[in-house]
Structure formats: C-alpha cells, structure tokens
C-alpha cells in the first residue's frame, strides 16, 4: 500500500464534560507505522482519546498535529484520512457486506449525483467507477477471506465474520491511521486469540500506524509495539510492553499489569537503608531519605522454603500457607506473612519439583532483591541499588524516539 503512514504529536490534550474531566493534559507522540495500544481500566479516558483522534469529539484544550505540523483540530472526521473499527463493528445493517466495504469509496470517489440511488446508474462514468470500487472490494475481501460473504447482510454473519467485514471497510480506504476501539471484546476467547494474530500480521504487512484501545493487558502485551498506560485521564507511562512490565514508573502501573497482581509489602527507608517487616533488605537507596515505602515484588520473583526444601534468599519471613492454586505447569501459593500482608508466590519449573505442602504449613518467604521495586507513598518510583547491581529505572531505548 503506497500511502505513507501517519504520525501524531499530541500536546496538553484535555477534555471535560461539564464538571467531569476525562482527559487531563495528555502528551503523546505517535510514531509513523507503529502499533500503539491505549491500555487502561474502563473510564480511564482511552476511548475518549480515540474519539477525539477520529474527530467525533473536540478536545477542550490542547493540540493534535500530524508529523508535518498540520493541526487536526476542527477537521471533519472524513478528511482526517483515518479508518476505525468499532467494538460494535458498526456495520450498516441494511447494506450487503459488499456495500458496507464499498461505502467509504463510494462516498469518496463518486460525485454527489453519481452516488444517488437511481440517478447514479444513468450518469456516465457512474457505472465505471462502481466497477472499480467493486474490484477493490473483492481484493480486500479476498485478503480477509470473506469473498463468499459479499452478498450477505450483516445480520446473517457470525461475530468473527462481522469483525473481518469491519476491518475490510477500514482497510479499503488505505488510511494513514487506523483506530481500533476494543475490536475483539465481543468475540469468544478462541476467536480472540486467532484475530489477535491476524490483526498484528495485517498491521505489520501494511505498515499503517494503528492506535488500538483495549482494557485487556494480554492483548496489549502481545500486540503492541508500544503501550500507553492510561489511568484517570492521564498517560501514566508510555513504553514497550517489556519496559512497562518490568520497569513501572508508578505503583498503579505495576499493579495493573501482571496476573496475579504484584505483591505489595510495607517498608521504611532511613538514610540509604531499606527495612521491610522488621528486616533490612540488601539494597541501598540512591538518594538518602526518611519515609515509609511500598515494596512491590511480582509473584514469580518470590521464593519459598519449607523445612529446608526449596530455595531461599535472606532475608526471609515466616508465613502460613493458606491456599494452593495449582494450574498445571505452575502453582500459586497464597500465604500470610506473620504480622504482615497476604502474598502470592508463583512456583514453576524446578521450584515446583518435589514440592508438596500440607495445609497450614509454615514456610519461609523471601524474594530476589534484584526484582523488587520501591515506590513512595504517592506511588512514585524510588531508585535503589541492589547489592552491586544498579536497578534504577533506566532511561529506556523506546522512550525517546
């Protein structure tokens, strides 16, 4: 596809509906050709951002510019060279699949008179243009493997077929920017996985900049080049899936990603030393300070020891096992630390081997100091050094573009 993909420069974007603020001062650069996921819980403003990009809503403040500096504010949706796939697919129920896919082209390539129902057929060129459009529709349909459905109405299609038609309608335009609003959420699980791959393949092949809204972290992690993690109208963090997962800038990001959710343990910092539940941790703060902190450790980074079996790294805390959750290749251990919080430990592979525990077993719980992340009370990330390894959040490659 010959058209160049579009980049966007979004600055200070805000949107209020009366007293409700949906977006607050959002900055974002969209890199041409990338697959960008807007991820966040419902109500975080991700759909509103998408609707503003499409032109359905006007922002209250802020700017949106294309890579060549043209502002998009006030430009009609149809002039933005954007295509969109809706969660509900938004197919025209009264038109055949063929006409649904052809609709954008009919509106663009035919004159007002040519596209009128009866009149159009009589006009010169009208038939010729219709022919060209039809072959374009057939090409797209073949690509999406829905050629056999062209004569049907949307009401006669399955969910996955509707999905393909909706994508077809978006593709035929050869848009410079592709918007997708939770396009997989109305499909069943198996189909969702299949379509996930198809959409990514398609995007890679065509190289069209794609902004994809979802609340499903798996989708975001598996599909995106970069993820914008949004909460409460703000972009909390922007980065590659790896960065966002392993190097959260904010405790909310850490909590949002990963299943089961990250463990949070209470701690204190005094000077450069960090204490957790009465024990010193083998880490050193980059900056000396005195404050309570939140210590976050993912379940897979936790260790467990029962009567000498299993690995353990000092320091460790005694805990009581409350429940085991075996899921085949791994087991989740739910335990309560003595005089401390409940934690989840994920055991897999070698750790799991020969590991068996009675109920109410007493265990020692520890974690790899390299894996822990420190956040202050407001949730902001603090930097520390674990042993001799520097685990401060590094200025990552994907951040700066």
């Amino acid at each position, binding site marked *: 596809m010959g058209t160049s993909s579009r980049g966007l420069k979004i600055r200070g974007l805000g949107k209020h509906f009366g007293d409700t603020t949906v977006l607050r001062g959002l900055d974002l650069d969209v890199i041409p050709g990338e697959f960008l996921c807007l991820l966040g819980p419902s109500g975080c403003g991700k759909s509103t951002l998408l*609707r503003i990009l*499409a*032109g*359905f809503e006007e922002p209250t403040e802020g700017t949106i510019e294309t890579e060549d500096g043209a502002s998009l504010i006030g430009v*009609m*949706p*149809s002039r933005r060279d*954007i*295509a*969109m796939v*809706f*969660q*509900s697919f*938004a*197919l*025209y*129920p*009264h*038109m055949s699949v063929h006409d649904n896919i052809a*609709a*954008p082209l009919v*509106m*663009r390539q035919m004159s*007002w008179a040519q*596209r*009128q*129902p009866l009149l159009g057929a009589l006009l010169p060129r009208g038939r010729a243009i219709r022919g060209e459009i039809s072959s374009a529709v057939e090409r797209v349909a073949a690509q999406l493997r829905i050629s056999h459905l062209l004569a049907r*109405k*949307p*009401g006669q299609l399955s969910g996955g077929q509707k999905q393909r038609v909706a994508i077809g*309608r978006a593709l035929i335009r050869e848009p410079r920017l592709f918007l997708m609003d939770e396009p997989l959420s109305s499909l069943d699980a198996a189909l969702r996985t299949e379509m996930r791959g198809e959409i990514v393949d398609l995007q890679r092949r065509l190289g069209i900049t794609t902004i994809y809204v979802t609340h499903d972290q798996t989708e975001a992690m598996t599909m995106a080049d970069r993820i914008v993690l949004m909460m409460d109208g703000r972009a909390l963090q922007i980065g590659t899936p790896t960065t966002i997962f392993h190097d959260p800038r904010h405790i909310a990001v850490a909590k949002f990603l990963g299943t089961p959710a990250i463990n949070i343990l209470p701690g204190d910092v005094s000077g450069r030393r960090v204490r957790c539940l009465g024990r010193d941790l083998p880490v050193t703060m980059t900056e000396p300070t005195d404050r309570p902190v939140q210590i976050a450790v993912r379940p897979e980074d936790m260790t467990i020891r029962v009567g000498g079996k299993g690995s353990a790294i000092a320091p460790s805390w005694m805990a009581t096992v409350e429940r085991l959750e075996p899921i085949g290749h791994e087991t989740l251990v739910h335990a309560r630390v003595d005089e401390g919080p409940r934690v989840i430990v994920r055991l897999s592979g070698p750790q799991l081997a020969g590991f068996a525990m009675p109920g109410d077993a007493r265990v020692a719980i520890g974690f790899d100091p390299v894996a822990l992340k420190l956040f202050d009370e407001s949730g902001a990330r603090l930097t520390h050094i674990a042993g001799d390894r520097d685990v401060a959040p590094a200025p990552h490659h994907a951040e700066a573009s």
Partner: protein
Amino acid sequence: MSGTSVLPRARRRPAANRAAVHGLLLAGPAILFLSLLMVAPIFVVFGLSFTDYSLGAIQFSFIGLGNYLQIASDARALGAIGHTLVYVAIVVPIAVLLGLFLALMIQQRRRLRHTYEVLFFLPATSTFVAMALVWQFLLHGRIGPINDWLVWIGLGRIDFLTNPATALPTLAVIGAWQLVGQTTILFLAGLSSVSSDIYDAAALDGMEAGWDRFIRITFPMLGPTTLFVVVTTTITAFQAFDGVAALTQGGPAGSTETLLYKIYLEAYQYTNMGYASALSILFLAFIAALSMFQIFVAEKKVHYS
C-alpha cells in the same frame, strides 16, 4: 402401608403439559373477552350484512348479497369510499413526512428535546370535540383569523369548511394536526434505536451530515419504523370520523362523507343495520388488506436481523 407408597402417586404430568395448562390459565380471560368482544360480534355483523335488519324492527329477512350489490350502485357509498381515499392520501404524507422531519430536527436538540416532544404531542392528547370548535372558528371563511392572515399575506379568502372543494382537504389537515405528534414520537423512538457508532462510522466514511447521511443511513435504518408509522397512520386515517361528525356532518354538498361516517349514518341515523353491516365488512376488508400488506413487506424487506 406397603413400601410402594413411599413414592408419591403424583400426577406425573410432563413439564410441557404443565406449561400448556398454565399458559391456557393465564390467557383464559383474554381468550374469553376476545371471543365475546371481537370474534362473536364480527360474526354477528357478518351475518347481519346479509339481512335487511333495521334497528327497532321486530322481524327481518335474509336478502343474500343484496346489501353488497346495493353498495356498488350507491353513489353516496362509492363517494364515501372515494372521500376516504382522498382523506388518507392527504393525511398520511403530511403526518408521516412532517413527523419524520420534526423527529430529525428534534433528535439533535439536547435540552429542548423533551419540550418539543410534549408540545407536538399535545394535539393527540386533546379532546377532539373541544378542539373541533376551536378549529371551526379559526377556519371561518369570513371572520376566521386564519383567513385574515391569508388576506394579509396577499392570498385570497378560503371558505375552508364550507366550500366542497376545500372542506375535505381541510379536515385532512386537521386530522394530520392531531396525528403528527404521534408520528414524530414514533420516529424519534426509531431514531434512538440507531446506534451512535453507526453514525460515527458513517462520519468517517464521508457521510457526515445532511442528505448523504439521511438517505444512506438514517432513512434505511428507519425502514421498519417508517413502515409501521405509515400503516398505522393509514389505518387511523381510514377511520376518519371525529372531524366529520364535529365539523361538517358530511357536508358541504356531501363532500366530506367518509366511509366510517357513512356507516354511522346508516347504522345510527337511518337504522339500516343490514346495510351498515355490509359497509362495515367492506371497511374491515380495506383495513385487513392494509395490514396484510404491512406484514408482507415487513417480512420481505425491512427486517435486517
């Protein structure tokens, strides 16, 4: 007692059977009243249409198809059918198109939407006998304010209700006046069932507003609503009676005699029950045909899912 009595000797009715009994019990009253108030009377009317029964008469006789043959040669009955068709032909387009237009205009209003809905629906809720008198004066050929305004804008006076050429159209406009609120609200209901995603998708595809959006999206999506509105409006218009009874009594020069008014005259004024019954059956046939048309078209064309 022997051991077999442990099992309750329950009437082991299959579930389907029980559901059937429940269903019949629930529908019972409706079935009773349906037979009593609808089915039986229609059979009686049908039967009477083959007699010369006259209200108050002690005896009557069967005259076969006599009443029906009489309709064919009764200039007034044929005239009444013609007037009814003309009336329908005026009321339906006005009520439907104006209703659609108003619905489209109102739909985009956020704050005033409900106000408009209520205002346009007021005529439908009002007592027609009372409003007819108001119209009679407003449309007075000589001293009516509407004629004063017509003169003021340079048009001549119109004897709306007393000129045979204008009386029927005038009644039709009044009829449309009463119906337009209903059609507006029905169209609004239809419009609100079109998802906003569809409009967003249409906007991206280049149908942002105006004619294209209307002709390609809104109107086709309103297909079932439109059909429903057209047919119900037509059926209502077919039953034109109030305006005739309250304003013209069929005049001037018989120009506003409608089928239902004619039935009323024959039944209650001339006491020709037999003939009135035959006209009623004809009337019923017209309406039944319309309804069949609706069902036929609805099945064929306008259902998308």
